[in-house]
């Protein structure tokens, strides 16, 4: 019997199964939950934190008070001893001395609590040292020694507000698409979202929709040819990212290693912990090796410069490229290739994966067994053509077709390196033969 209602989604090869209705329902419920939770927390924060402070600032009456006694109340809390500073004050409205908690939050150490009390001196009739205080006209036994809104309060509001924004945004998105076909939603979002960064990136040149504009590739003039191409993926940022991963991963692992080693040295080895952390240590070592390799390539191999005679590229057209490789390198081989790669992004459960497949590779230049002298970069001109009928560059949300000029170096005694320079291939507009 066929199912009338598919209740799960799964990527099966090139197609996806699942229930769009259930998906929309879950999305709406999830957004509503966020919205309600955000509103509840916001209202409770407002009632519990803002309204009392607002009353203190607006309705409480100012008077002077005498500090008669200072003390620290010590209690055993869940996480150890707690120290709560307390003042015994007398103020003008009510002559009866009354205890007042300066700060309702107890402190974890006595010094902090004492620092609060040190702000106040005990009353002496000679000095007549009074401190300002504010009492509640509706209940004169309620008194405070400070007013205003603490800074943390406004930061705390960011939490429920972010929940409300996410929830409301999700609900609006769901309601916007409710009962509309995929095509109608696409048209409506195209009209409204063309300003969206993704739309701009994806649409690029309006004469060639969904062909990336490639502005980065034409904003830097070359010294020999028209444009200097930017290297794909800034190496400095990639290196920084690897370093950050290396420090965070190994920092965390080091804590557990220290605990395990400490146990062994103290004669109380924790073998479960010791065995458990071994794979994490090995991964950490792998990250260190990878980082050092990247560092070697970045520091030891000089910059690669690629200039091109024109951009964007068109199928069937000829172009010239100028290659410059700096450094002090004993090269086994240096090659330049024109490549085209398909890139597909898909979601599997909560994971987002991107798969790439090279569909075109043409070696344009190969030079073997030579030495690059320091201060005397290797330079060469290369001529190539983009195959007639080649697919143009394409960028949508989940699928891309990317062309690149790839420089690959095989250096004696060093790790091999590969530097990609993205180029845009675009059809010639208005020429029916292309």
């Amino acid at each position, binding site marked *: 019997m066929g199912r009338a209602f598919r209740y799960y989604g799964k990527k099966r090869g*090139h197609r*996806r199964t699942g229930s769009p209705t259930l998906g929309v329902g879950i999305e709406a419920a999830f957004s509503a939950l966020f919205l309600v939770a955000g509103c509840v927390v916001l209202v409770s924060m407002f009632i519990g934190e803002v309204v009392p402070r607002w009353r203190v600032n607006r309705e409480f009456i100012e008077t002077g008070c005498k500090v008669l006694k200072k003390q620290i109340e010590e209690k055993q809390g869940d996480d150890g001893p707690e120290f709560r500073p307390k003042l015994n004050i007398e103020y003008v409205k009510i002559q009866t001395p009354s205890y007042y908690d300066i700060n309702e939050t107890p402190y974890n150490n006595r010094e902090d609590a004492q620092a609060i009390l040190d702000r106040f001196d005990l009353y002496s009739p000679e000095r007549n040292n009074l401190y300002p205080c504010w009492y509640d006209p509706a209940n004169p036994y309620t008194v405070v020694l400070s007013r205003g809104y603490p800074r943390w309060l406004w930061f705390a509001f960011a939490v429920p507000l972010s929940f409300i924004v996410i929830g409301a945004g999700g609900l609006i998105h769901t309601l916007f698409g409710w*009962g509309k*076909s*995929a*095509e*109608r939603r*696409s*048209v409506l979002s*195209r009209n409204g979202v063309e300003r969206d960064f993704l739309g701009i990136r994806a649409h690029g040149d309006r*004469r*060639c*929709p*969904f*062909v990336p504009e490639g502005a980065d590739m034409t904003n830097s003039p070359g010294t020999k040819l028209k444009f200097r191409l930017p290297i794909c993926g800034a190496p400095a940022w990639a290196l920084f990212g690897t370093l950050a991963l290396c420090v965070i991963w190994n920092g965390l692992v080091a804590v557990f290693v220290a605990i395990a080693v400490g146990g062994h040295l103290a004669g109380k080895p924790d073998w479960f912990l010791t065995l458990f952390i071994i794979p994490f240590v090995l991964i950490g070592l792998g990250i260190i090796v990878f980082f050092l390799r990247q560092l070697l390539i970045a520091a030891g191999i000089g910059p690669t410069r690629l200039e091109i005679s024109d951009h964007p590229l068109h199928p069937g057209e000829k172009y010239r490229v100028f290659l410059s490789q700096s450094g002090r390198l004993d090269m086994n081989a240096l090659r330049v290739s024109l490549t085209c790669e*398909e*890139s*597909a*992004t*898909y*979601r599997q459960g909560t994971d987002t994966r991107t*798969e790439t*497949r090279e*569909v*075109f*590779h*043409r*070696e*344009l*230049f*190969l*030079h073997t067994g030579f030495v690059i002298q320091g201060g005397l970069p290797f330079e*060469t001109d*290369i*001529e*190539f*053509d983009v*195959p*007639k*009928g*080649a*697919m*143009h560059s*394409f960028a*949508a*949300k*989940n*699928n*891309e*077709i990317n062309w690149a000029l790839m420089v690959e170096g095989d250096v004696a005694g060093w790790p091999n390196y590969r530097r990609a320079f993205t180029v845009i291939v*675009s*059809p010639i*507009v*208005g020429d*029916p033969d292309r």
Partner: protein
Amino acid sequence: MNPDFLISIALDGDGRVFRPGETLSGRYWIESSDPQRIKAIEASVLWHTEGKGDEDMAVHEFWRRDADRELPFDPRRPEQFSTTLPNTPLSYDGRIVKLRWCVRVRVLLHRGKDVVGEKGFLLGEVPPAGYASQNGNVARK
């Protein structure tokens, strides 16, 4: 497929490859034993991706006919459509990314149900992936 609603789409010059900037025209009609169940008909000229990645889709041209706004509403009468095709994206048969153009007609029924019919066509003459990959002459120094 719903046997109660038969969607027919005919393209002028059917079967040929369309070039960027050319006019795509044709007509569609719906044969139904119960046309009162139709709430609206949407026709779109669109592209969508197939393959490994999640689907991307963009509508180039869109027409909608609401049954209660069009009197008399006769879905059996062939409805003409015409649009100028864009320069890109071109139809493409890649390894993990495929780009298909089509005319899609969606018949929206009452109670949220719908029936869809499609007619594919080719925009541009890009050969399948790998076709252009033969090695050319490699410059050697």
